[in-house]
């Protein structure tokens, strides 16, 4: 299997406490470019949902004059999704409630700048 340029980046994010999966997703079509997920995580479904959510948020922020979306966090009862985008590519993590979101956010925003 070919190793993508994002493998190390995704491995680093997946080592964070509470992170059960990380992805690089194409926002345009919702397909996962690369992923690093624990067993049981439906990578394709997460990728598609995260891409769709990021796209909606980007369009809404554009309409509202808020500028370009740099980070997105969706919180739920048992965990959440974080996404940081650059052009068409979006870096996504799915995490449990025990994750340190502040640290994850900083790492993701830094990593997103390296997405090409």
């Amino acid at each position: 299997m070919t190793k993508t340029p994002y493998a190390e980046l995704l491995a680093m994010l997946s080592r964070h406490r509470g992170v059960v999966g990380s992805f690089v997703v194409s926002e345009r079509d919702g397909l996962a470019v690369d992923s690093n997920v624990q067993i049981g995580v439906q990578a394709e479904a997460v990728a598609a949902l995260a891409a769709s959510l990021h796209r909606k948020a980007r369009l809404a922020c554009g309409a509202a004059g808020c500028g370009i979306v740099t980070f997105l966090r969706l919180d739920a009862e048992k965990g959440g999704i974080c996404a940081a985008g650059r052009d068409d590519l979006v870096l996504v993590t799915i995490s449990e409630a025990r994750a340190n979101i502040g640290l994850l956010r900083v790492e993701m925003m830094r990593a997103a700048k390296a997405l090409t």
Partner: protein
Amino acid sequence: MPEEIRRLSDDLARDPSSLVFMRLADALRRAGQLDVALRVAVRGLDRHPYLPDAHDVLARIHADRGDLERASDEWEMALRLDPSHAQANLGLGFVEFRRGDLESAERRLSTVPPAEQTPGVAAALAHVRSALGARPGNGAAVVVPNGSPPAEPVRTSPRSTPLVPEFPPPDPSRTKQLFDSALDGSDQHALLVDADGLVLAGAYTDGSGNDIADVIAAELAGVSSEAERAMRHLGLGAWASLLVEADEAIVAMTPAPNGSVLVVTASRRTPVGLVRLLLDRALGRARDWLVRVS
């Protein structure tokens, strides 16, 4: 008074988390520095949102500014936190009296136990009862405790008239300001949007002052439905909040009662954690308001 304000300001500067903000805000209010008093009280409430006395101080500031609607909201909040809060009952009684709702005012003031009745409460109660007794016949304007005339003419219906609801129905013209006291600056906006993407309350203006609330509501409603769908598929439970950071602003959303969604936006200068706090505060107001509306 300036010496007291200076001393309290120094105390607060030394320990910003201190509860001295309540005394400082009240001292500023009494000195007539209402804008500064408002800022001090609002910032203090950011740190201590569950202090009934702090809501009472903020209510007094609003009342002194002539904003009885917001004053009423804050006193109601104080009573939710402490149902026996005498000053909040007194304040709401005052507001009801100003609105000409003497029955409600009398009922409100009567809830203060005699043992806790300050001379001020007793005097206010006596004044209301006196006005109620004098009302049916002469039609004379009632004079409120501070000596100024009531904001609206006092109704002269007999006492046998059924009591009006304890809280008046919301004024549609005020719904745009519903979240003003929950926010912390002019660069922050809040909107309550129904399930169809229609604005229920709040306001959103762009940099040119144009009202774009409808556009924002319609666009962001799609985001909330997407969030709900994502969480359902992932089995992570109900979504609690969505925070979007963009170049120019931070947008936070959370589900509100009756399928509505609350949206708060703030400029990038606002710390991300504070936006979540503002969202929680605005959600409290939205819940209260929806209860009153429905």
